[in-house]
Structures are given as structure tokens and as C-alpha cells.
């Protein structure tokens, strides 16, 4: 979504260069401060020390000013975002000229909201956003899990906003939900630092996991944090399979399904989150579990996602016992029905599910 805020007028190449320049500036400033902090270096003579220090400091200051100049040059190249439609060309499609079908008023309001959003989404305002600033470490396309777009409040008349709010409420009812943003306008404006789901306290994560653990008696969840705050779960489902779930906050990053009798620990006793199962059936289930992670997505309510994922996972308790709901058989190509429907949880062979 980081790209989403960049209007077509922005020179992306220059933009990425500018980010690199900012990085360079940061590092040179850091170096300058480091130099100051470390003080004089040991040399034979006092004179030599002072000289060395001054020249080192001068050098670092020079590099700071050079990097700053570079950044200024690039910032001119980045260019102003154009005031075009934020929807690019596909946005034109929604401007359906069939008058009898599309009420003009709602469209106008919609248009207002778009422009409103556009204001808020101009890159300059997003730059101020701390969350966005964090992402500067990577290239612009690689936002890290920021599945929300958030924007600064627009400076418009209250009246218009009021209407817009009403209208968007109506529109939302008509399943015209287009993106998560529009909800944000109708509901009271969310505070800027909305994606708190990325930095949930470990205690909260523990609670959510514990609750899920208690929910399913045949499923036991073991939580550990070998790498800092990211939790890793070892889910043992009956005597059927074991699942290793790597979390980041409450988002599931990665999951591996292994057989009940397979070793899930490395030589030194840590959870082995990389090696895959030796059995084809569990490799298949691993793929399906990854699919499930892509399917169950609700960035605003990550705990619901985890819960629904676990509920779905639990349906594998009958992995070897349930015949396929379509063909009625147990085996197809040597594999049992490995697919579980995301809604009904019914068992299907991978090839029988469509």
C-alpha cells in the first residue's frame, strides 16, 4: 500500500534514489556524532591527537553536507504528485454514465471523498507518518506488513465531512466497500498510529493463544519465544500431526506441518522451523496451511484470524479417517483428502475441491 500513496506523477526511480540518499545522510550524520562521541584517538603526541581528531571531524562534517546536498538535489527530481484520479485508469470504469442507475449525489460525495483522501495521501503527508518512516529502510514497494492505509485529517468544512460520513455509511451498506480506507472516514477518524496490531504486548499474545488452547481439548499449543518477542507455537493435534507456527505479533508468518512422529527439534533442542516434513501428505497440508494464511486475513482483528486458522487446522484431526466429500474415496494419487474447505471444513482431495 505504500505505493498506493504515490500518484502517477511521482518519479519512482528518483524516489528510491532519494531514499538511498536519506540513508546515506543518516549514516554520515551518525558517523559524525560517533566521531564526536569517541573523542581523541591515541597517538604519540597530543598535537597529533588533536590534529587527527579535527581532521576526522571535518571529514565527517563534509560528508554530511555532501549527502545533504545530494538529497536536496534528488528531492527536486521527485516531483509533485499530480492531482489526478487516485484510481488510475481503472477508476474511470466506476464513473458509469448510466444516469438512471447511479445517483449523482452519491457519486459526487464519493468524488469528494476521493479527493479528500488524495489530499491526505499525498506522499508528503505520509512521510511524516512514523510507521511509514520505518519502512524507509526497504525499497518503496516492500512495506513490511503494513496492511493499513491511514491518512492525515483533511482540512475541509465540517459540513461536507458530515455528509460524506453519512453517505459512506450508506454506501458501505450497499456492499460498495472498496478499500479499508473508506470505513475509516465514516467511523470516527482513527488515531494515526492505528496499526497497533503490529506491536501487541507479549502478554496479550499469550492470552489469545491460551484461550485458543483451552478452546480445543484435542489440540495442545506450546508457546515459546526463542527469538525475542516473536512467538513460536508448536501445535500438536491429537496423534495426527504437529504444526510449527511462527508468529510476528499476532500475525502468522509461517507454518510447517509435520507428522506426529517426526522430530520437530534441531540437534541443539530448538524448534526446527525450517525443515519440511518427510511425508508427502504433510508437505501438501503445509501448502494448504499457507494458503489458509493467505485466505484468513483481517488485519484489524488478528486474533480472529489466529482463531479461525486454528479452527480450520483442527479439522485435520480426521486427516486419515475422513473420506473425500466429493469422490467418497480415501485415496487419490496416494494421498488422503488433504484439503479442508475454509468455510465448511469439509474434506476434499486437492484435485476434487473445485
Amino acid at each position, binding site marked *: 500500500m505504500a*505505493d498506493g500513496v504515490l500518484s502517477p506523477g511521482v518519479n519512482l526511480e528518483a524516489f528510491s534514489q532519494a531514499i538511498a540518499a536519506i540513508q546515506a545522510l543518516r549514516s554520515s550524520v551518525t558517523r559524525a556524532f560517533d566521531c564526536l562521541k569517541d573523542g581523541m584517538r591515541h597517538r604519540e603526541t597530543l598535537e597529533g591527537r588533536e590534529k587527527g581528531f579535527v581532521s576526522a571531524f571535518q*571529514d565527517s562534517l563534509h560528508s554530511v553536507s555532501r549527502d545533504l546536498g545530494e538529497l536536496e538535489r534528488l528531492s527536486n527530481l521527485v516531483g509533485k504528485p499530480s492531482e489526478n484520479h487516485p484510481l488510475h485508469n481503472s477508476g474511470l470504469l466506476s464513473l458509469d454514465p448510466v444516469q438512471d442507475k447511479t445517483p449523482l449525489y452519491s457519486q459526487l460525495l464519493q468524488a469528494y471523498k*476521493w479527493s479528500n483522501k488524495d489530499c491526505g495521501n499525498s506522499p508528503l503527508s505520509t512521510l511524516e507518518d512514523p510507521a511509514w518512516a520505518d519502512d524507509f529502510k526497504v525499497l518503496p514497494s516492500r512495506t513490511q506488513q503494513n496492511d493499513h492505509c491511514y491518512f492525515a485529517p483533511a482540512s475541509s468544512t465540517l459540513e461536507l465531512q458530515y455528509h460524506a460520513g453519512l453517505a459512506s455509511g450508506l454506501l458501505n451498506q450497499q456492499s460498495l466497500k472498496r478499500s479499508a480506507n473508506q470505513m475509516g472516514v465514516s467511523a470516527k477518524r482513527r488515531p494515526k498510529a492505528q496499526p497497533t496490531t503490529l506491536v501487541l504486548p507479549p502478554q496479550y499474545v499469550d492470552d489469545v493463544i491460551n484461550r485458543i488452547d483451552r478452546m480445543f481439548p484435542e489440540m495442545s499449543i506450546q508457546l515459546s519465544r526463542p527469538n525475542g518477542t516473536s512467538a513460536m507455537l508448536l501445535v500438536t493435534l491429537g496423534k495426527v500431526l504437529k504444526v510449527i507456527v511462527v508468529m510476528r505479533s499476532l500475525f502468522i508468518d509461517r507454518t510447517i506441518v509435520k507428522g506426529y512422529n517426526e522430530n520437530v527439534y534441531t540437534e541443539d533442542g530448538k524448534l526446527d522451523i525450517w525443515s519440511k516434513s518427510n511425508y508427502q501428505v504433510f508437505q501438501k497440508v503445509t501448502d494448504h496451511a499457507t494458503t489458509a494464511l493467505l485466505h484468513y486475513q483481517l488485519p484489524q482483528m488478528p486474533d480472529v484470524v489466529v482463531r479461525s486458522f486454528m479452527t480450520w487446522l483442527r479439522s485435520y484431526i480426521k486427516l486419515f479417517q475422513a473420506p473425500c466429500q466429493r469422490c467418497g474415496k480415501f485415496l487419490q494419487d496416494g494421498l488422503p483428502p488433504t484439503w479442508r474447505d475454509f468455510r465448511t471444513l469439509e474434506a476434499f482431495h486437492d484435485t476434487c475441491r473445485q
Partner: protein
Amino acid sequence: MSGASAVRISIESACEKQVQEVGLDGSETYLQPLSMSQNLARLAQRIDFSQGSGSEEDEPGPGGRDWASPGDAEDEEGLVKFQPSLWPWDSVRNSLRSALTETCVLYDVLGILKDKKFMTLDPVVQDPPPPKQNPQFLQLISKKKSLAGAAQILLKGAERLSKSVAENQENKRQRDFNSELLRLRQHWKLRKVGDKILGDLSYRSAGSLFPHHGTFEVIKNTDIDLDKKIPEDYCPLDVQIPSDLEGSAYIKVSIQKQAPDIGDLGTVNLFKRPLPKSKPAAEVKLLIHLSLPAENQVRLLFQFQLCTFYEIEIFGAPHWQTKLEAAQNVLLCKEIFAQLSREAVQIKSQIPHIVVKNQIISQPFPGLQLSISLCHSSNDKKSQKSASDRQSPEDHLYVLEHNLHQLIREFHKQTLSSTVMPHPASAPFGHKRMKLAGPQAFDKNDINSLQSNEGLLEKIIKQAKHIFLRRRTARTIDSLASRIEDPQIQAHWSNINDVYESSVKVLITSQGYEQICKSIQLQLNIGVEQIRVVHRDGRVITLSHQEQELQDFLLSQMSQHQVHAVQQLAKVMGWHVLSFSNHVGLGPVESIGNASAITVASPNGDYAISGSISFDCDHKMYLRVRFSSCFLLESISRY
């Protein structure tokens, strides 16, 4: 009593011990003589205090009481009368009594004085008090004198202290050989052979199997002119390092594109990131390094080994610790390289690994060359080495160099800890997991997995492949994301990576329509040889290392996304989807794949729009829109 021997009698004084009883056999039981305190207590017990107080009847003190009990006193006096001869403390009592008498008199006089009727006290006129000043003056003088004495003592002490500090410093500068040797012994293994002191540089005790003996000799540094000023860094202890371990060494790992025919875009720039800042940074590090005390260098040195600019500007002879660490590093690098080249010769691969002098060349992917080289330079040939270094300072793969060091250390650890103590203790020694293989009926696969022992080279090649694949995937996605603005590509890289695996989630969205159409979400698991793509609809696609495959795949996903978006939007707007296909075989020939197409009709059926989406050779997307009924005109709008 007569039973006691003559000798015993002659020793003991009769008065000291009293015989308590004489047994029937003639043996005597003695009473222990009283100790001083016991004796005192006994004597004190004999004092009749009531009698004593009674005998003070003539004291005039506490008024009426004494006058009231003269009779009592008389009686007691009588009692005393026959005792005095027994009394050893008689004189004491007498003087006490006289003292009491005196005080009683004084008391009475004072009592009379207080009334001021019968008696008054007048001050006696004495000499004027000149001596009053004198003592003060004397005091001052004596104080001054004693203070001076104290000061002198302190000064003496301070002098002695400063002398000893100076001596210490002197000693420190001179650093006698033995204390240096002691310090050396704390960090290195030493043993005495004949009249030589030999030390061990090798990692053998840490589990290394490298055959190099790695011994150094400790020598006393005597070639110093004692008359001249001793240079500051003079050290009486020096070490003699085997000639082949002198200088500095590091392992260099790099990936080069062998030929331009590999046909991918990323490679050229992939490993050439602008690194203009790295050189000054390295120099700064170097300075810090030199200024640190020797103990802390162990940790830093490792960091340091990995950096290219290994040119120490040595002022004079380096300290022995520095020397030894450098030599040990050379030894480790040699071991790594020896291990790698041995494996390179042994391992059969489709394209054989080439070992040329100090370089191992391997081909992880066709057209790609991984080279691992041992760069070893002794100090005198520094200029030559740095020249070769400057050719390509940027293509280092520091990660792999670091990992090589880590791997060899892991390898060392493995040789040390492969066998464990048996439990129960009577069982023979053996490999930890292997011991379970029999009684727990491990099957063939389990046993194979226990025995699999991948070499250093295989591991590092696998890591190199993965790094290459990962970087190029990132590059491909990024370049697509920056070139194509609609739809948008987002990549969320997982925060946890393995040396052989990493994953990225790719989302394709249209801005403003994220809720309506989120059909395309992919998870890319980047492995060693290939990329596994898990699609949101459950499909799993395996892509090879060829960049084109990933790019084509992403482009096709994007075109599918567009069609899906149109379809969803049409539904929302009340239009009818007439037809929909991800791959239409009709229309103009596309350069890549097939176009996706959709036909929608307006709610009242008057209009129909058909659109097809394809990518042309510039990787631009085209949407061809055809309006039916009114215009039979084909309008092509280009994005």
C-alpha cells in the same frame, strides 16, 4: 595418703590440694585448689556487710536514721568485736570507714554552710592569674609542634607512596619477562620442551582436525640497549610464529556473472551496491581496534578479519597478542580453505569445482560463478596484495565469509561433542542419537538423516544459491513494482530467514479497491534451487532459478487481477458479466502468454464493454476496450 608415691609428694605442695577422700584401694581424691576469682568470691562472702554498716554508727550523715538506731549499732559492734582476727580485709574496711567519716563530715559542713547562719565561706585571696595565659600559649606551641610532626609523617608517607608509584611505572615500562609470560600463559597453551617454551596456536583443543602443528616459540627479547631510552611499546617477551602463518589472511567469497547470456536483468547490479562509504568506515574501525587493550581484541579481531581493508599500519613491532591472534586467524583461514578444497575435489557435481592455487571456483547456477579464495599476505608483500584487492573491493559476500567461519567452528564443535557421556553409566560411549537407533527401532530414513554429513563446500554453495535467488527475487519484484503502477504490487518479507530459505508475501491490489478484489495473494518461498509459490486459491507453483519465470508469472497474475477487479467492480455497479476468461486464445498474438479478457453488459443491456488485458514487450499493460452497439469502433487506450 600414704599410698601416694614419694615423687608425687615432692612435687605437690600440701596446701594446694586438699585430699577429699581416700579410696579403699588407697587412691586419693583431691580437691582442686581454688582459683583466684573463686578465692576472692569466698573471701567476699565472708564479709558481713550489715556489721560493716553498723560499725559506721559515728557517721553523722543521714540524720535521724543514725540517731534512731544506736542500739542496733551497739549490738553489731559487739558482734564485730570477736571477728577482726579472722578478717583479712580489715584494713580495707577501716579505710573505707574513715573515708566515709570524712565525707559525712564534709556533708555536714556543707549542710551548715547552706544555711549561711553559722558559717560562710570566703574566697582566699591568691596570686593574680598570670599563669592562666601561659598554659594556653604553651598549648598552642605544643599543638603546633605535634601538627608539624604529623605533617612530617604524612609527607614522608606521601613521598614513599609517590616513589613506589614511580617505581611501579618504571617497572611497568620495563615489563619484566616473567610477568609477561604469566599473562601469555593466561591466554595461550604453553609447554616447556627442553630449554624452549612452545605454545599452541591451533584450534585442536577446540575440536579442529587440521594437521598443522601450529606451534609458536616464546623468546626473550633481549636486543635492547638499556642505556637508551626504552621505547614505549618495548616488550621483553616476543613470539616466533611459523613462517607460513605470518602476515594476515582472509577468505574472500564472491559471485560473478560469468557470461552475459544468462538472460536476467538483475545480476549485473545485484551485487554491486554503491559502497562508497565502506572504506572510511573500515578505517575508523581499524583505529578503534588498535587503541583497544589486547584483551578486547579477540572479539573485535573477528569482525576485523571480515573486512577487506586489512592493512594495519604497524608502528614498530606489534604486541605478541596481536601477532598470535593474527597468526591464529591465518591458521583458521587455511583450515577453512583446506577443508573446502578437499571437498571440492571429492564432491562429484555436474560441473566440477575447480581448485586453482588459492581459489575454488564453482558454478551454482549456469552462467554464475562462485569463487572462494584464500587471500594471504605476509607483511613484506603488502603492496602487491592491496593492489589485487583494489580491483574489485565491492563483490565481497561478507555474509558468506562470515558463515564460513561460523561453519568451521560448528564443525569443530561437532567433533568435540559428537560423543556424549553414556547414561546409564555402564553403557559404552557412543553418538547421542545413534545410541537410540537400536532400541527405538529407527528406520532407514531416520538413520540416514543421522548420518548425513554435508560438507562445508556444499553448505556454502547452497547458501550462495539462496542468497542469489533471494536478492534477485527481491529485485524482480521491486522493479516490477516500480515500473507498473496499476495494479500495485506489495511485498512483505518475512522477518525470519534461514540460510537456505526465506519467504515473501506478494499482494496485488488496485488502489482504492482493496476490499473488493483481493484475489491475488501469493506466498513465495525462496529456497536453494527454486521458488515455490503458494497461491491464495490453493495452487502451488514451482519456479526455477530463471528470473524470466518469476517475472512472467507475476505479470500473468497482475493481468488476472485486473480482470478480476473489473469483474468485481462490474458486479458492484450492477453490470452483468457476460464472459470472462483468464487466457483468451483470440486476438492479436501477445508477446508473453495470453491476454485476459472480460465482457460486461450494462444493467439495462444497452451497452456492452469487452476488455482484454495483456502485457507487451515493454512490459506495459494494455487494456483494449470495445464498446458494442452504438460504436463499432475499437478504441485502444494505452496506459
